């Protein structure tokens, strides 16, 4: 009989389709796992609503549950329960090691332009905070582009959501 813990462990093996250094569990998008009579219900939240990886994630989770011998029901929950604050400490460290600056913690309110332009964002390569905003947007909806003036390296900054 499959347990919720076994499902969580299996889901932790699925890499994020766009940033494969981090798993879906580390990304914090798996909200709930329920096991009942051989059926496994997984609730997950998209990071961004326009994320093209949504279907891929859903199919991969369903496949993992089937590997455990259970029938999956994967529900996409488009509510406000995901924030970049849900990325685990291990996930943040993996992002940084791969050259993605992890998101700044979300304050009570939405981030402001002046914070992105003047705030102390740290370069994931050399650790300097002498970095500047190049583009609010980047190669995927979840990232911004910054430039480190110390090591002259452009890098991607995870947006705070």
């Amino acid at each position, binding site marked *: 009989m499959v347990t919720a813990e076994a499902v969580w462990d299996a889901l932790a093996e699925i890499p994020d389709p766009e940033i494969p250094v981090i798993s879906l569990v580390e990304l914090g998008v798996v909200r709930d796992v329920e096991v009942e009579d051989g059926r496994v219900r997984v609730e997950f939240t998209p990071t961004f*609503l326009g994320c093209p990886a949504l279907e891929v994630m859903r199919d991969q989770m369903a496949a993992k549950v089937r590997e455990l011998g259970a029938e999956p029901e994967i529900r996409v929950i*488009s*509510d406000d*329960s995901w924030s970049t604050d849900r990325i685990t400490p291990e996930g943040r460290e993996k992002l940084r090691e791969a050259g993605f600056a992890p998101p700044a913690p979300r304050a009570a309110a939405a981030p402001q*332009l002046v914070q992105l332009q003047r705030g102390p964002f740290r370069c994931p390569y050399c650790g300097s905070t002498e970095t500047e905003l190049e583009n*609010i*947007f*980047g190669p995927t909806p979840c990232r911004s582009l910054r430039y480190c003036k110390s090591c002259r390296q452009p890098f991607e900054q995870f947006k705070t959501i």
Partner: protein
Amino acid sequence: MVSPVLRRVSERAPLLLPIADDELVLGWRNSEWTGIAPFLEEDVAFSSIAQNEIGHARALYELVAAELDTTADELAFDRSPDEYRCSAFVELRLVPDWAKTIARHYLYEQADEQRIKALMESDDDEVSGLAAKIDREEAYHRMHAQMWFDRLQDEPRFVEALEELRPLADKRGEHIPEFAELWDEMTMVRRSVVGATW
């Protein structure tokens, strides 16, 4: 002719369809800058904003679709042109006019913020939850629009564009002639392969 699904009763449809249609159509218009924006950073920005807006449209259509027992794709692409409830403002094809594009972007994000904040107060938990999620993303669109407003606010062409477009922001009801062509482009794939899923 009214699409069969729209004859069913939905409390969400009158509230959410105008917003979803705006986001779909504006997302489409913004994507027209992909590959041809004045510089690379804006190519990236407008493509990303377009992707977000279409994602918001999909999520809003899904909430309406759940009540009407249909799908987001049917609502997005199977209605006739006169059934779309978007504003004339988002229908305008503004490529290659950068000043007007930024003026619309700025005015749209201001107006959109108001209605999304109102939806966040909805008694319908799915609507208020989705609106709050949309707002997290829109915060970045607003920052981008503000950055350009700060840069262009003294430019006569930009000021003229704001004055020209501002009265259109709330104009809803009749489509402009350009919409027919947009609808044709937007629904072409769906109409050519009946029943296809992607």
